[in-house]
């Protein structure tokens, strides 16, 4: 049963990952990534880490992917050119990726970690639930926890600065009081007022 679940989830994760890099339309790439994230959450459940699985579904598949969908809808598809700046890039890149995979596998599997071939020790019932993770976060890993909260705050401020910085030549919203009024550019009510008499 466990093996069946593992291979199903692994197939979903791998299929989602290949879908992300193979789809031409970024919207379908985002959908493939959602499939990938759900499969990964079930793999986390197999590894008895319930909190990480729940955070994966809620934070990633819920919040982050909604952000992606909004930006894809705002930016549009953006046709990707078919030409290659480096000749043979599309054939060399998978070769390099396969080499990376073989290298990573050799590096991990031939290491002297004796427990790699085992399932791991038997864990108590509360392993990986929110209480255990919260205790670790607030006692042993308090400083990384606080540092990550500061990082989140900085990222939010940075995103606001990046996204709201308006200069000329940008697409502005029409209902905003713009400097066009001072330059005598007719605003929207004036042509209709001139047309009625």
């Amino acid at each position: 049963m466990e093996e069946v679940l593992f291979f199903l989830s692994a197939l979903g994760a791998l299929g989602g990952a290949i879908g992300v890099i193979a789809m031409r339309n970024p919207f379908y790439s985002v959908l493939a990534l959602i499939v990938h994230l759900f499969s990964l959450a079930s793999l986390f459940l197999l590894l008895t880490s319930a909190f990480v699985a729940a955070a994966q579904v809620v934070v990633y598949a819920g919040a982050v992917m909604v952000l992606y969908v909004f930006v894809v809808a705002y930016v549009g598809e953006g046709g990707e050119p078919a030409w290659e700046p480096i000749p043979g890039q599309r054939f060399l890149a998978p070769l390099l990726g396969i080499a990376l995979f073989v290298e990573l596998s050799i590096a991990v599997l031939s290491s002297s970690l004796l427990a790699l071939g085992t399932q791991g020790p038997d864990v108590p019932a509360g392993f990986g639930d929110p209480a255990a993770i919260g205790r670790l976060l607030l006692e042993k890993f308090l400083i990384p926890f606080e540092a990550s909260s500061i990082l989140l705050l900085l990222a939010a401020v940075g995103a606001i600065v990046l996204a709201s910085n308006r200069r000329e030549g940008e697409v502005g919203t029409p209902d905003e009081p713009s400097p066009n009024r001072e330059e005598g550019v007719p605003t929207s009510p004036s042509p209709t007022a001139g047309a009625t008499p």
Partner: protein
Amino acid sequence: MNTEWFIVLSALLFATGAIGILIRRSPMVILLCLELMLNAGNLALVAFSRMVGNGQGQVFAVIVMVVAACEVVVGLGLIVAIFRRRMPLNVDDLRELRG
């Protein structure tokens, strides 16, 4: 399931993300491939946490998720800013910072 299966799967997912970064040119898809690689790292962290039998790897997986969320926010903000300045959304054309 043994731990090595999870580790090999995470190496496979990491390599898939790396291939995606190498062959795609849209910055949005490159961000998605970065997510793939970060998630592969998360899978390895959680698998090792189960192998060792304590929850510390899971704490780091949660922190990696926070870092990934920050990266997504800043990256998508950059993409929106690039789009509003009517510059091409193609990493081969955005080479002003190249040394």
